[in-house]
C-alpha cells in the first residue's frame, strides 16, 4: 500500500492517529522493527567487544596507518553509497524507473567495493598471523572478537547487495513499487549507520601509534 492509498481510503490526511498511528505502509513498519532488533544484536556484539577489551590488559593495537586509511576509504565508500541510495529512492518516488535502477546499481557497486576492501584488510591481518584464537600481538581473544564483529557487518553488507539487486530487478519489471525501493534503502542506511560505530570502536581505538 502506498502513502496515497492510505490517504485515499480514509479520505482524510490528518487526525488518523486512531486508525493509522504511523501513516506508513506495513512493510516499512516491519523493516523498522527488524532494524530495531538488529541494532540490539549489533549493540550486544559491540558491548561484548568493548567488555573483552577492558577486561584484557594486553589488548592488541595492530592497525597500521594503511589499515586506518583503508578503513577511512571504506567509510567514504559506504557513506557515498548511502547518498546513491537516497538518489535511487528519490528517482523511484518520481517514477523514473531506469534512473532508480541505475542508482541502485551504483549503491550495490559501493557495497561490493566495501566488501573487497574489507576482505583485503582481513587477508592482510591473517597474513600477519591473526587467527581466531591466537595472534602475535596480545590477548588471544582479539581475533574472535574482531572477526565476529566485522564479519557480522560484512555479512549485512553482502546480504544488502543481494537484497538491492532483487529489488532493482523487481522494480524494473513492475513487481515492486517505489515503497519497496524506499524500504530496501532503510536497510542499507542502517548497515551504514552500524559501520559508524564499528570503525571508531575497532579500528580507531586500536591504531598502532608508530
Amino acid at each position, binding site marked *: 500500500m502506498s502513502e496515497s492509498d492510505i490517504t485515499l481510503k480514509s479520505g482524510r490526511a490528518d487526525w488518523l492517529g486512531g486508525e493509522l498511528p504511523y501513516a506508513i505502509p506495513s512493510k516499512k513498519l516491519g523493516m523498522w522493527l527488524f532494524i530495531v532488533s538488529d*541494532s540490539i544484536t549489533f549493540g550486544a556484539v559491540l558491548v561484548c567487544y568493548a567488555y573483552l577489551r577492558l577486561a584484557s590488559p594486553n589488548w592488541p593495537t595492530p592497525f597500521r596507518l594503511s589499515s586506518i586509511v583503508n578503513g577511512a576509504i571504506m567509510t567514504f565508500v559506504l557513506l557515498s553509497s*548511502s547518498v546513491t541510495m537516497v538518489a535511487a529512492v528519490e528517482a523511484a518516488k518520481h517514477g523514473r524507473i531506469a534512473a532508480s535502477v541505475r542508482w541502485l546499481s551504483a549503491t550495490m557497486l559501493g557495497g561490493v567495493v566495501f566488501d573487497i576492501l574489507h576482505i583485503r584488510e582481513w587477508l592482510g591481518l591473517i597474513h600477519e598471523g591473526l587467527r581466531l584464537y591466537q595472534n602475535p600481538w596480545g590477548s588471544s581473544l582479539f581475533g574472535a572478537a574482531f572477526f565476529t564483529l566485522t564479519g557480522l557487518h560484512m555479512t549485512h553488507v553482502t546480504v544488502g547487495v543481494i537484497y538491492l539487486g532483487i529489488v532493482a530487478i523487481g522494480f524494473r519489471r513492475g513487481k515492486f513499487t517505489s515503497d519497496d525501493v524506499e524500504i530496501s534503502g532503510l536497510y542499507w542506511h542502517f548497515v551504514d549507520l552500524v559501520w559508524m560505530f564499528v570503525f571508531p570502536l575497532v579500528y580507531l581505538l586500536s591504531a598502532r601509534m608508530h
Partner: protein
Amino acid sequence: MSESTSHDLSKAGMGWFLKIWGVLLFLTAIEVFLAYEDLPLHIMLILLMGISIIKAALILAYFMHLRYERSTLAWTLLPAMVFVLVMMVVFFPDSVRIERLGEFLH
C-alpha cells in the same frame, strides 16, 4: 519532528542530502584525526562515541527519513531501543573487576 503524513522527499532534496553527506565525511575525518592524538582512553572513547552518535542521528533523521515521518514512529521505536542498549552497560564494572583481580593475584 514533523507531524505531516506527507511523503514528499522534496522537503529534503538532493542538495540537502549532499550537505549531510559532507558533514558525515567531515565528522569521520575528525575521528581519524583524533585516533592519532595522545588522549587518555576514556576521553578518546567519549569523543569518538559522541561523534558516532551524532553521525547515527544524522543518518536516522535524514537518510532514513525519520524526521519527516510522524513523530509517533520515532517515539515508538527509539526510546525502547536506547533503553535496551544502555542497559547493556551494566556489564562494564565487571570487566574492570577482572583486571583488578589480576593485580591482586600477582
